């Protein structure tokens, strides 16, 4: 199973100055100021680097929430525990 805590770390590193709301697993693009479409792009690149995976171009526009990310990471077979 894929660990949300690690994904949360990627958020903290990508948005170092942001105040990230507590309900992490429900968050989606736009829920805090820094997570805009450019922020989402940076986030996707950081997730790729962290898990050594590659999103395809459809993923780039489809993945917009923590839920999207964890489902996709699951389907890519990312295991962090």
């Amino acid at each position, binding site marked *: 199973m894929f660990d949300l805590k690690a994904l949360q770390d990627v958020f903290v590193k990508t948005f170092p100055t942001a105040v990230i709301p507590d309900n992490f697993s429900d968050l989606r693009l736009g829920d805090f100021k820094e997570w805009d479409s450019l922020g989402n792009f940076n986030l996707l690149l950081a997730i790729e680097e962290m898990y050594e995976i590659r999103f395809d171009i459809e993923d780039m*526009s489809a993945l917009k929430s923590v839920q999207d990310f964890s489902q996709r990471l699951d389907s890519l077979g990312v295991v962090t525990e």
Partner: protein
Amino acid sequence: MNRRITISGSSLLLPNNRAWEKIKLYGEVSHNDYGDWSGSLINAAIDEIVVQIIFLDDFLGASDKTHFDLDKIFNLYLQLLKKSLIAKTAPTIIAIASCDEIDAVRNSKETSLRQQAQQYLLSSLHELASSNALLYVIDLDRTFAKIGYNCAFDSRNWYFAHCYLSSKGLEVLTDTIYQILNRHFNTAAKVLVLDCDNTIWGGVIGEDGISGIQLGSDGLGQVFKDFQIEAQKLARQGVILCLASKNNEEAVWDVFEHHSGMVLTKDDISASAINWNDKASNLEALSISLGVGLDSFVFWDDNPLERDQMIFQAPKVDTVDVPKDVLSWPKLLRTLSCFAKFQITEDDVKKADQYRSRASFIEAKASTSDTLSYLKSIDLRASAIEINGGTISRAAQLCAKTNQFNMRTVRYSEADIERFCLENSSVCFLVSVSDVYGDHGIVGLVYLKKLSGEVAFLDTMLMSCRVLGRHLESWMLNEIFLRLNKLGFKSLVGEYRETEKNQLVKSFFTDYGFTQIQSDSLNDSAFHNLSITDKSTFFTRKVDEGSLPFLEIYNV
């Protein structure tokens, strides 16, 4: 820090990406809207750092033309760039990439059009950069070659968001910009300290003996020899080479003198500490005898224990994280960014000799009881050197690097100094000195400006630490008074602005007959141009107020 850095480019450069974090060390980073790269040339403030990333496709279009009129394509851009550099006080960095993928078949007969365009633009930019100290050029093709073209670019990112680069490509790009800004604002390291056993040769001299160590033309011996070649190159470019080795000193010098594979000679080594003491204390001793702070030292040792100990005991020293794989050493040494300089001056080339003579000067001086008659005996000669195209880079270098003998520690750029030389009411000159230990080259800088009709201000007076102890300051002050007298000035005002490193000159003004000015007299109209900090103390002295101490040791 309120410095601003404006990044612009013709494609999306991922603002707010973590890769840009390191650049924030040098100012507040803002990204122009992508595509607006000419705007950053036109609108940037003169003290704003401008970084432009140009992909040639944006000039040439992606179409496959068979001919480009390069003059026409780049002329407008180059004109705009030239104009933007006028009066600039902060660096401008231009990085260009050709976006050219090699076609092995076609390129086997001719260079591609994009390659021609890249070469044209690069050489135009480098020509500009050679005469403009604040312009830096990055050839991204070669920079990206390190990781591979396919790794640096990402067509998914391009089609998704008009971003040419991959994360890795962006990382390499920002690293390169960082290196340039770092060297612009901080000086290069000065001293390389090498271990001996398993570092400049393979094996342990104390155990393997001179015939048993690996050094020469075969196998690993060749690698150690190449490593020495790189070290020697650094020494010839002005890096001070030292040894720190736990060994019997005789055994080490025996290898230097008698092993046919040795490249380094005793002359390449400016100072050494070959004994059984811990290396951190040895480096401290070397720092004192060379007169160079530990923060300018780089330490290379194959032994991770020695490295860890150095990091722990002397954190100021830059301890190289030496990889286990010896084969990578020669290249790593060649490309160590801590020694990288924008240009190598003639003075750099002489430096090893100068530091060696400094060490012998200090030894001889210590062994003489009557310092003054000793100094008289070493044939000290100083002269003033005008600032011109050939010497201005040395003037700027002295300004950037001198910490100890420096009254105000104001860092001026080449452009600033060029401006001072053109002001007709100011006096600006360099000082060189020689003695029986050698020609020390250009070691001092003076810049005087007018405060009022009769009062001059000593804006800059500094001297390289390697000639300390020769009372050169006395000669410099005499030269200053001679020149001021000729120009009709009656008195000189000086400022001591205290820093962490310039305690050495704290009493300079009182030692040389200046009197401290009380703060209320600074209200006089003559002084109203002075900028006063809480670290400032001001002094004054009449131009013709009698002779200066120690002047007799110079053949004036």
